[in-house]
């Protein structure tokens, strides 16, 4: 099996690769969005705490 035929997917490349692409985009979003949001929230809270201490 050549790399070319692997990407061609027997002529169904568009359907197969779009499916896999969308799936991984959605899964990555659901995984990293909360991580980014939590970092932001923690930064905000840290700022608030600093301001409160002054």
């Amino acid at each position, binding site marked *: 099996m050549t790399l070319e035929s692997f990407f061609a997917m027997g002529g169904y490349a568009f*359907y*197969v690769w779009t499916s896999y692409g969308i799936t991984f985009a959605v899964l990555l979003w659901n995984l990293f969005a909360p991580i980014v949001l939590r970092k932001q929230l*923690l930064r905000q809270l840290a700022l608030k705490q600093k301001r409160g201490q002054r």
Partner: protein
Amino acid sequence: MSFIPAPLSRFFHRTASPPHFYALADKLVPWLTVLFLLLLIPGLYGGLVAAPADYQQGDSYRIIYIHVPAAWMSLFIYVLMAVMGGIALVWRMKLAEVMLISSAPIGAGFTFVALVTGSLWGKPMWGTWWVWDARLTSELILLFLYLGVTSLYGAIEDKRSAARAVSILALVGVVNIPIIHYSVEWWNTLHQGPTVSKMDKPSIHISMLIPLLLMAGAFKLYYAIAVLQSAKLELIKREPSAQWVKSLLENKA
């Protein structure tokens, strides 16, 4: 709580306390990630490379390795949410509320994936992007159920009430899912005749089955990782001025 032995109940309460759970999640995530990759990589290789092309559908059937596990996950997560809802309502366990609401977007994501991949699979098979096939229709209704959960939670300002509302809704939804499923199936045979779609009964060979099971396992582990990340955010959001969050900030600084 009376029918649960005291040491066990103490163990649950300790594990369920936010700081303890937060630390536990931090410890678990690396292990889960390793396990996830151990299943994902051979699963993808087996599905995309090793398994032979289907004699009827050619390579387009390879969408099965994400479509079917995603559809399984969409149901599995909803049932899990209902279980969490039951625990939250009966034992007033706040961690169950947090897990319930953290699961909803992930479940909705899987449902969306199942729908989109189903449609992308259907196009070469049926010649149209959308067919009112029983599984796709059920999946669409399931997506509405998920959206109902997230929008109800977002709409109620007091988050304790919102969690209670969502728990009730998840329980009502889970009772309805089998009814919806069977009604849609019956409707499908009524209006379309008994055309067995390729999606429902893939005549599956062992070399095709193994990657499918590997992918299903990988998706479950992905869910565990994602829900822990989401729950960590939700825990801080709920009590931003709690003592444990303060000490968390100090440790970071």
